[in-house]
């Protein structure tokens, strides 16, 4: 070996050592977080919200003193099992594509005669909107271990998917952020938080199948609407209206991209 190639070999060895050290350090931190996440799976407080949601589902309420048990979530009146895995979808009675939470508002209004405006306008986690988190926990829990099966076929579903895709890439605000800024590439992180790449099947599955979720850090149950709301806050956008079309469109984009992935709802997060 001549002096030049020895020099190169030595240089490469040093580079490799540095790279390995940096990798090992990162790996250790990441491993710790993953172990923590795994430990959390043992007892998910979301179960308590599921129980509350089931009570709300079966309890007569509103001016009509009716329960939600006749609510059609897409699989026929009263069918909850597997319904969440097929939402959002088109509903003929409203002539709209609806996600779980906008559909629940429809049922509360039509079956129970409830004025849903206070539910739309209240802050997340406060009455009466907190009921929506419990209901979402209950309904999504009835699709646990079932494959996500949203395939846009109705023209309005296809339009909603396209609108969702366009919304995903729409930049605005003082930081020029779009959903795609953080969720448009494979394997990225904000600080230590891994970001799902929502345009891929794997990434969409990681996001879509794990919400609604109980968040350990805040001790709160978050529905998908709440999750999206806080994404837009951090995106420095104005606030999305609860159950508005932009939020349903993004859910349609995620759900359809997650096709075939197993629902793990309700999930648990750090």
């Amino acid at each position, binding site marked *: 070996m001549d002096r030049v190639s020895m020099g190169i070999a030595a240089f490469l060895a040093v580079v490799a050592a540095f790279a390995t050290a940096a990798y090992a350090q990162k790996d250790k931190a990441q491993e710790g977080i993953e172990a923590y996440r795994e430990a959390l799976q043992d007892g998910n407080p979301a179960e308590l919200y599921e129980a509350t949601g089931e009570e709300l589902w079966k309890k007569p309420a509103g001016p009509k003193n009716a329960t939600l048990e006749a609510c059609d979530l897409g699989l026929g009146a009263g069918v909850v099992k597997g319904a969440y895995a097929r939402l959002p979808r088109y509903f003929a009675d409203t002539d709209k594509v609806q996600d779980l939470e906008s559909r629940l508002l429809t049922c509360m209004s039509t079956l129970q005669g409830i004025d849903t405006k206070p539910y739309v306008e209240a802050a997340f986690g406060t009455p009466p909107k907190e009921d929506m988190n419990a209901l979402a926990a209950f309904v999504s829990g009835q699709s646990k271990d079932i494959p996500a099966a949203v395939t846009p076929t109705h023209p309005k579903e296809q339009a909603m998917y396209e609108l969702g895709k366009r919304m995903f890439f729409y930049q605005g*605000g003082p930081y020029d952020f779009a959903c795609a800024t953080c969720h448009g590439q494979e*394997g990225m992180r*904000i600080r230590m938080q891994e970001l799902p790449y929502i345009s891929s099947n794997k990434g969409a599955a990681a996001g879509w199948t794990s919400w609604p979720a109980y968040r350990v850090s805040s001790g709160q149950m978050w529905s998908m609407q709440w999750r999206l709301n806080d994404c837009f*806050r951090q995106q420095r956008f104005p606030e999305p209206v609860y159950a508005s079309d*932009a939020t349903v469109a993004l859910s349609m984009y995620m759900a359809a991209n997650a096709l075939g992935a197993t629902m793990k709802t309700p999930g648990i997060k750090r």
Partner: protein
Amino acid sequence: MKHVALLAAFLLIAGPAAAQSTGKPAPWGPGADDAAFAQMLKASFKDKGIAKLDRLNQDETQAFCSDPGTASGPASAARREKIEAANLATVKWPSDGKWLGDWREGEKIAQSGRGNTWSDKADQPNGGNCYNCHQITAEEISHGTIGPSLLGYGKMRGQGEDVLKATWAKIYNAKSSNACSNMPRAGHMGILGEAQIKHLMALLLDPQSSVNK
């Protein structure tokens, strides 16, 4: 609602023009044309705190980069250069000719992700959000990966005038050198002031900074 009407008008004008310049139809499928999309935006958002609806109004850069398929294509090369030049023209250079502030202050700004959300107050200083996306010092292992590592940034580059200018321009307006960079335009959008940018410059370029140790 005036801004939404403006947005709709902008989309209607910009849509066909963009399609013409690339010779490609808009990438959005049926039902997501400019009119439908503008209508959805209008119905789906509301003012909250300091985050007003006018934040949905796009400037030319944002509109161009919201269609990444077209924006990144070879047919858009000239348009990208034009957008970069327009962004470079917004850069205000240091008013007193001094480029570097205090790297310790820069570290604090890099650590802070505060500011400009609807839960923030307008009168509080904004953070730089730098660690959210960049590795910067070896000590801070909680860093994001959307941006490149900045470890040893100044050590590798020195403090020549070209380096000072390029670094300042990148922080002030990241789109001046990469039309659709994921990085916010900290100076141009009023996220950070001149003194704060100087502190970040020092964090990156001061030989005493933990970036370069």
